């Protein structure tokens, strides 16, 4: 009788390749190997390698760009903030307003985030300096003023909370020193414009705005080359004609009084 059919399968179908057949097959394989498109295989690897290089190059270009873009929304204290400072230095020739805009944005964001008063004050000072260095502070001056108002509100709120009355106020005032000429000085003048209208700017509203006038004077004497102060010097000397030439934020806010001076 037969063995198990499955074992019969193995023996019945067993084929041992004949040596002559093997020789013929291997010769064919050898020919095929010689004609095998080796470039095709290396081409495939080459393509993969080239793709790798392309990816690396793209990453090299895109990564800094991505970091620069990501740094755009940072505020002082963030990890990417130094990147923002570098990129804005590069961008200044193309966009003069960039520094001032950034400082004001940062100030607004810090106030929004209720950051530490010290940080806000420092940023407010930088913002004021940046705005004062602009050829045309008019554009950003009002926005900075609004931010500073918000800052004062916060400070007052904090005071009413009774946390530390002295600190925020003195902190708020400090940055003013750096920017007297362009942003702070006009404000009191604007408020008092109707009254001081008849009093010339040279006499400095001596009756009531002592501080403001001395500020102006010290500005002139201390850093006559200072941007905001310098331009104000000009507008002071030829106050009637240069209404639009000087720091416009100043002229238009406090300018009413001054123009009436020229008129009278």
């Amino acid at each position, binding site marked *: *009788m*037969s*063995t198990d*059919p*499955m*074992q*019969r*399968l*193995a*023996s*019945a*179908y*067993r*084929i*041992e*390749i004949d040596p002559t*057949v*093997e020789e*013929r*097959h*291997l010769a*064919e*394989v*050898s020919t*095929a*190997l010689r004609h*095998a498109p*080796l470039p095709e*295989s290396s081409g*495939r*690897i080459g393509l993969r390698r080239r793709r790798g290089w392309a990816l690396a190059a793209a990453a090299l270009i895109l990564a800094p760009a991505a970091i620069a873009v990501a740094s755009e929304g940072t505020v002082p204290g963030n990890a990417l903030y130094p990147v923002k400072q570098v990129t804005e230095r590069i961008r200044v020739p193309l966009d003069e307003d960039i520094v001032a805009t950034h400082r004001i944005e940062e100030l607004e964001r810090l106030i929004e985030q209720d950051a530490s008063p010290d940080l806000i004050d420092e940023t407010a000072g930088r913002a004021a300096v940046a705005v004062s260095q602009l050829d045309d502070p008019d554009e950003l001056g009002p926005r900075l003023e609004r931010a500073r108002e918000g800052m004062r509100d916060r400070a007052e709120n904090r005071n009413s909370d009774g946390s530390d009355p002295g600190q925020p106020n003195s902190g708020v005032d400090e940055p003013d020193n750096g920017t007297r000429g362009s942003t702070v000085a006009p404000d009191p003048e604007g408020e008092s414009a109707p009254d001081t209208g008849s009093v010339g700017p040279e006499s400095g509203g001596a009756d009531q705005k002592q501080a403001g006038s001395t500020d102006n004077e010290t500005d002139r004497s201390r850093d006559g080359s200072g941007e905001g102060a310098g331009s104000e010097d000009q507008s002071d000397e030829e106050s009637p004609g240069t209404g639009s030439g000087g720091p416009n934020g100043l002229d238009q806010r406090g300018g009413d009084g001054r123009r009436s001076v020229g008129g009278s």
Partner: protein
Amino acid sequence: MSEYPELDEIMNGIRTRNEAAFATAYRQTASGLASFAAGIVDDRRFAEDAVQQAFLELVQAAPSIKGDGRSLRAWLFRSVRFTCIDELRRRARRPEHLAASVPDVGVEPPQTALDTDPALAAAMGRLTPRQRTLLALRHIAGMDGNEVADVVGGNRAAIYAATKRAERRLRKILDESPQEGQP
């Protein structure tokens, strides 16, 4: 490392189209591949051609062959399997092919299992090509269930069940056949 260390060692040579590596692969697998092919298409000459075809295809595909020696073996068996299935379709379309070509070959008529074990060959002929494929992989090429699954693809449990069914059917056909029992 797989259960085919001789093939494991030559994988790099295969990928870089080294001739010695191809010769080793051929000597390690050719007889098994030819026997497997004969289990599906009972024609020795065709079985040998199918082996050659598989190695010529391997020459083309070599750089992209992945894995170890076992993967290479599965690749070669897949190639032979496709060649066999194509051949079965071709013969089904043109049944005269067999009758016409055999006399042409003339000198030494192709050996088949019909010569060595006619009852078994007749029984195999009554199975479906897929059943023959499963039995040939399992019992002619001596593969385990996992290897069979690597070659035909698909769910291992389903393949195991289908193989068992094919075995039962072959036994049944042989039991019913009158001239059973002449190995």
